[in-house]
């Protein structure tokens, strides 16, 4: 396992670039007009999982976008997944 300096030496610039890309994406969304969208709501929710000291932030982000229900759906009406769960538990 690499130490922290080695990890930062290897990946800091790449992660910095991706972070700025995310910031620019959010700027783009904020400049645009239109209705609220569940995908972006979940995106914002996922951002809340970042910044702590835990080492399972990727898992938490994935769970934020995941269908939390347990039962099979009655019928598949599409083949595609969109990356965020459109449903509601309530």
């Amino acid at each position, binding site marked *: 396992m690499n130490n922290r300096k*080695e990890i930062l030496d*290897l990946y800091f610039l790449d992660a910095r670039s991706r972070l700025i890309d995310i910031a620019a994406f959010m700027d783009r969304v904020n400049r645009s007009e239109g209705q609220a969208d569940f995908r972006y709501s979940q995106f914002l929710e996922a951002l809340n999982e970042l910044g702590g000291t835990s080492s399972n932030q*990727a898992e938490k982000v994935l769970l934020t976008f*995941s269908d*939390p229900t347990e039962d099979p759906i009655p019928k*598949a009406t599409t083949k595609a997944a*969109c990356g*965020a769960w459109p449903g509601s538990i309530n």
Partner: protein
Amino acid sequence: MRYIEPHGHMVSRTTDDYKSMVMAGCQIVCEPAFWAGFDRSSAQGFYDYFCQLTQHEPKRASLFGLPHYTWLCINPKESEDVKLAEEVLSIIPEFMQSPNVLGIGEIGLNKNSKNEILVLEKHIDLAASNDQLILVHTPHLEDKRKGTQLILDILKADSRIKPERCIIDHVEEHTVKMVLDDGFWAGMTLYPETKCTSNRAIDILEVYGNERIWMNSACDWGSSVPLAVPNAIQEMRRRGKDPNYIDKIVYQNPIGFMSQSPRFVEPKS
């Protein structure tokens, strides 16, 4: 460096891809049956596809000295039509003894529907009845966590199924633990946008260990990279991983799983 591509949909790839893979060190390619990007209209369409997987594609790979193995099924994306699925299932046994068939796959779920589960159970029964290995596709993106749990529950409910003879593919950070904890093999798919990146896959190895796990490109007709595994090898080198550690992930582990099929032949090199 030698490696095995355990999951590549080569019917969708060019001859140049074969050449690039071999030049990068690929020793064996394995091709699970897949959705064509459109729904086939009849079981006859699948018959032709299975002929392609068992006859034509091995010849194409052999032009580059590359052994080609395959897995047979109707993909979960086409499982909503149970009648068609049953017709396709009925023709699979005819191909099951072909010398390059390793088992039943990639079966699984797509949207986690009741019909998908019904067809998955029929595939599992076909595999169990014929002592075949199983390769499982887990759903995409928001459907993956739920679908993976449903699949594990279904497999565990069948007493004939041995977890060590099943690989659950496309695991990510939120599903890998449940798969490994239940004794199954896990596959990590290296994709540019969905599934795992090389770095995330290597992170998963560092957290969960390197037993019962492999990585693949799952290259197909969509956004995917046939050289994803050699790219990950390079990334592991950048992290200073030992060559024996890398070899276990990209060569020895796939050999270990696939050797459970009597039709699999380990390369002499």
